């Protein structure tokens, strides 16, 4: 297209009146000149003018031709189509309304998933140039992933041109005003690098490393300030307690910045405060603990690969002299532009959810396509007439697609509103159904829809409109002019084929969704019923800081509410147990076994049965050879076919200088003797089941880093609250976390419940759409075959025969759909089962239940309109022709 062409068309588009006027004036001038010529030749003025007009021909036709050159035809035609479509909707408001509602619902659901995806993956953090921010991690030669030590950090920081900035932090969790809170202990350049401004006071600066006015400083997040301190405008300068230590608030971060992670942060303290949160965390210890997460800003014109290579070479120099296996082999840069990096992994997490919701949208589109098709067939006469009057098929298709687009526009508004509502209701419902003790730990990033969501909604609506508008309009305009002029508007067979395909697709999708819902429901039920083997109902776990440990233990032992107190290094059901390399006496092979350090009353508090030997006795604490109790599975694995009792094991220290978690508390357990076998219990997550090999090592109840487990009397929830208040009074800041063990169990089952509710709602919605689809098709078939059925009845067919005739097709559809849906569900079940241990690969009950549900619903939906067929009166029907 030429530039002059574009300019002229645009001018004509935006100043149509001027272009039109100029054209008239130009033609008028021509006629006038011609008239003057005739006048000069001797004609009288009046005649001259009439002659000139006659010579010119049809003025309007010339104008029309000239207009065609300007190319405004399409615009005018669209306007015409829109007007025509609006008139059509006014004649069939129910049709228009049900299309808008169906599509709006589908778009709304899809848009709500996209809103979440957008908030976690697409929307960049509100900091300076978020796309150049990266988290760093490195992998050693045996494939272990590491963070960084303080020494690594200072090496990487020194003349490193790959990064414009490099900050370090360590994430800590504690309680702030009695409610769980997350924070980061950060280096002084953290905020400078991110370019985050304060809403009040100031952010942390490099000088904050040392104590200020004798007390360390803290910066609060905007929402922590609003929600936990009531937005106190005098907050700056106030002292607050964290873990019993006072901090001076120096500032509040501006709204919109809550850290660079999935879990929003509530506060930031200088990195030097880390030992106050994790007492064993000594950054400058000779063992060089790898406690630092690094956050870097890539220098301009530096690629990820360049930065990773530069970091790797620095890490290798830094690690010189260490054993080969713990040398850096690889450095990862993970984008920190959004809560979840825009990586394949993030996309894969969202794919199944997105697919499930998109399927519902597809169903909605299929339903609307069906309605459009029915409407198109009903309008055959109108279309035929227009075709006969000279409209091209392309023109008719454009007309019908315009109608679809017009219906999609209000659906966008509706869908946007539904997404907004669904997210609000969903979040509220989640917090309402969460086990109350878990609620403070669940944090979401802000989920409000933005321009990107709106754009997505428009895009989806546009694509849907093409789908539900184009296919039926191509189908229904397949009329030949000859047929149309002859008045033969009978439908061909192919639209029926399209309708059938749509119904089968609908049955397929609803079968798939309902079977998956059933599988998840049964899994949630199974997990809820799982015998975890330990007492959880009235056990309260208490995490405390080391300096108050003795006081807390004494208080717990005194408390009338507490029956027995035990201690464990790792809380069962909450975290993964660490592993240690074990060598059996008389055998040189090394086995990795999960272990937990527990006090002697651990088995008593959690009522874990002893299958052989004995549990720990008070004497074991002073014995020269430490005592060990192994789980049944561990016994079987370590000493197959032999009794483990009395055997000794050697716990291998890691090679000297190897970086990584070397639990110094294991030092005393060089050699240990097995004194008992404990029953298998669930120790980690519910899905992993109870058959894990575990080794229990005896430890003192007051040893560092342990949590207390208290068996309480009376109502456990009340006991927990009372204990919490009591401990806060006697030893302020000592308790960093207090939970009922029951909460962890509920927390394990909860995600399945959510997944079940989501897939069930989708499944039911899908089923409703399918019902409407089946109902529509059967009604249509009955309507179309009225004459045939009338003849059959007249010839003596029974009601049964007629029902069979009409229903057999629906049965065929239902069975095809259920079969395809079942096969797809089998695939989904396999994927689920491969990632969740306790889930069986094939859950017959779920498959049969889901399929029967769909089958029954389809039959029901088909039966209602097919009964109409049996009431056909042959005489009336036949007379109609």
């Amino acid at each position, binding site marked *: 297209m030429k530039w002059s062409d574009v300019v002229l068309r645009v001018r004509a588009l935006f100043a149509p009146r001027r272009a039109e006027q100029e054209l008239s004036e130009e033609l008028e001038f021509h006629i006038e000149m011609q008239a003057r010529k005739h006048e000069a030749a001797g004609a009288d003025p009046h005649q001259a003018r009439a002659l000139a007009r006659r010579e010119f021909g049809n003025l309007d036709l*010339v104008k029309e031709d000239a207009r065609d050159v300007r190319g405004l035809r399409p615009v005018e035609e669209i306007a015409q189509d829109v007007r025509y479509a609006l008139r059509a909707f006014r004649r069939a408001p129910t049709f228009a309304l049900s299309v808008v509602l169906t599509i709006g619902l589908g778009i709304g659901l899809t848009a709500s998933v996209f809103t979440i995806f957008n908030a976690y993956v697409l929307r960049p953090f509100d900091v300076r140039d978020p796309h150049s921010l990266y988290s760093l991690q490195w992998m050693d030669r045996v494939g272990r992933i590491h963070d960084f030590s303080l020494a690594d950090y200072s090496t990487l920081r020194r003349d490193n041109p790959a990064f414009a900035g490099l900050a370090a932090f360590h994430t800590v969790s504690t309680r702030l005003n009695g409610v769980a809170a997350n924070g980061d202990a950060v280096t002084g350049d953290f905020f400078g690098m991110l370019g985050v401004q304060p809403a009040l006071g100031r952010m942390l600066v490099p000088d904050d490393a040392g104590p200020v006015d004798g007390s360390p400083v803290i910066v609060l997040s905007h929402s922590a300030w609003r929600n936990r301190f009531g937005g106190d405008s005098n907050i700056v300068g106030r002292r607050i307690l964290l873990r019993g230590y006072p901090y001076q608030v120096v500032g509040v971060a501006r709204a919109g910045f809550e850290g660079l992670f999935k879990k929003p942060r509530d506060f930031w303290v200088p990195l030097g405060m880390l030992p106050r949160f994790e007492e064993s965390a000594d950054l400058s210890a000779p063992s060089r603990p790898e406690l630092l997460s690094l956050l870097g800003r890539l220098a301009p014109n530096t690629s990820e690969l360049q930065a990773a290579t530069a970091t790797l070479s620095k890490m290798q120099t830094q690690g010189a002299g260490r054993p080969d296996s713990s040398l850096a082999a690889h450095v990862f840069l993970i984008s920190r532009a959004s809560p979840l990096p825009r990586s394949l992994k993030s996309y894969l997490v969202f794919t199944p959810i997105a697919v499930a919701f998109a399927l519902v949208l597809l169903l909605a589109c299929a339903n609307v396509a069906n309605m459009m098709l029915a409407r198109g067939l009903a309008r055959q006469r109108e279309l035929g007439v227009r075709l006969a009057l000279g409209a091209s098929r392309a023109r008719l298709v454009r007309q019908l697609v315009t109608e679809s687009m017009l219906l999609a526009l209000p659906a966008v508004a509706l869908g946007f509103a539904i997404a907004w509502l669904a997210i609000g209701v969903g979040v509220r419902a989640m917090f309402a159904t969460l086990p109350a003790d878990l609620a403070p730990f669940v944090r979401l990033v802000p989920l409000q829809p933005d321009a990107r969501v709106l754009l997505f909604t428009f895009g989806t609506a546009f694509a849907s409109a093409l789908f539900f508008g184009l296919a039926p309009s191509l189908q229904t305009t397949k009329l030949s002019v000859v047929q149309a002029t002859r008045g033969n508007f009978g439908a061909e067979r192919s639209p029926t084929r399209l309708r059938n395909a749509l119904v089968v697709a609908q049955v397929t999708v609803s079968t798939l969704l309902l079977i998956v819902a059933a599988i998840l429901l049964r899994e949630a039920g199974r997990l809820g019923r799982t015998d975890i083997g330990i007492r959880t109902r009235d056990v309260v776990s208490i995490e405390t800081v080391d300096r108050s440990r003795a006081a807390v233990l004494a208080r717990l032992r005194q408390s009338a509410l507490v029956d027995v107190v035990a201690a464990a290094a790792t809380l069962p059901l909450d975290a993964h147990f660490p592993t240690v390399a074990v060598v059996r006496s008389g055998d040189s092979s090394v086995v990795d076994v999960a272990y937990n350090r527990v006090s002697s009353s651990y088995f008593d508090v959690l009522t874990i049965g002893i299958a052989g030997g004995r549990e720990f006795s008070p004497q074991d604490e002073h014995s020269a050879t430490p005592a060990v109790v192994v789980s049944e599975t561990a016994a079987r694995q370590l000493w197959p076919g032999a009794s483990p009792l009395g055997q000794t094991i050697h716990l291998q220290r890691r090679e000297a200088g190897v970086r990584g978690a070397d639990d110094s508390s294991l030092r005393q357990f060089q050699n240990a003797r097995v004194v008992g076998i404990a029953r298998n219990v669930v120790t980690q997550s519910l899905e992993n089941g109870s058959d894990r090999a575990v080794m229990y090592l005896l430890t003192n109840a007051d040893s560092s880093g342990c949590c207390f487990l208290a068996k309480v009397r009376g109502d456990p929830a009340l006991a927990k609250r009372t204990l919490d208040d009591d401990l806060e009074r006697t030893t302020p800041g000592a308790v960093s976390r207090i939970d009922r063990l029951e909460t962890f169990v509920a927390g394990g089952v909860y995600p399945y419940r959510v997944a079940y509710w989501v897939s069930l709602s989708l499944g039911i919605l899908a089923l409703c759409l399918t019902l409407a689809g089946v109902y529509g098709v059967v009604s249509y078939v009955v309507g179309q075959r009225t004459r045939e059925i009338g003849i059959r009845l007249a010839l003596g067919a029974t009601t049964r025969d007629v029902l069979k005739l009409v229903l057999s097709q629906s049965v065929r559809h239902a069975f095809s759909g259920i079969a395809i849906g079942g096969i797809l569900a089998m695939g989904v079940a396999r994927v689920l089962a491969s990632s969740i241990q306790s889930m069986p690969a094939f859950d017959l009950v779920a498959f049969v239940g889901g399929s029967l549900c769909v089958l029954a619903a389809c039959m029901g939906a088909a039966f209602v309109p097919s009964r109409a067929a049996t009431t056909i009166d042959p005489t009336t029907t036949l007379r109609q022709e």
Partner: protein
Amino acid sequence: MTTTRLDLLQGTLDLLILRTLVAESRHGWAISERIQLLSRDVLRVNQGSLYPALHRLEHQGWITSEWGVSELGRRARFYSLTASGRRQLDEEAEQWTRFSAAVGRVMRLA
């Protein structure tokens, strides 16, 4: 005058319009008069196709238009040739010469 008027061959109108604009810019009526005059009244431009053709040529970028004052003092739209229009004219004139020569040869010799 007993000369028969001939309808223009398809496509030749564009060529003639471009040619009439070589010397000076003209308005629509002047263009049609000029063609009529130079062809000794044999070629008569159909008024109905003149203006769409002018607009089409303008969209092609071969001619431009501007409003000016006609010899009788009335506002009129004057068309003039652009550089690319000149090139187009050369090309079309060339083609036309070859075409008419070829037709002439066939008529003479066949």
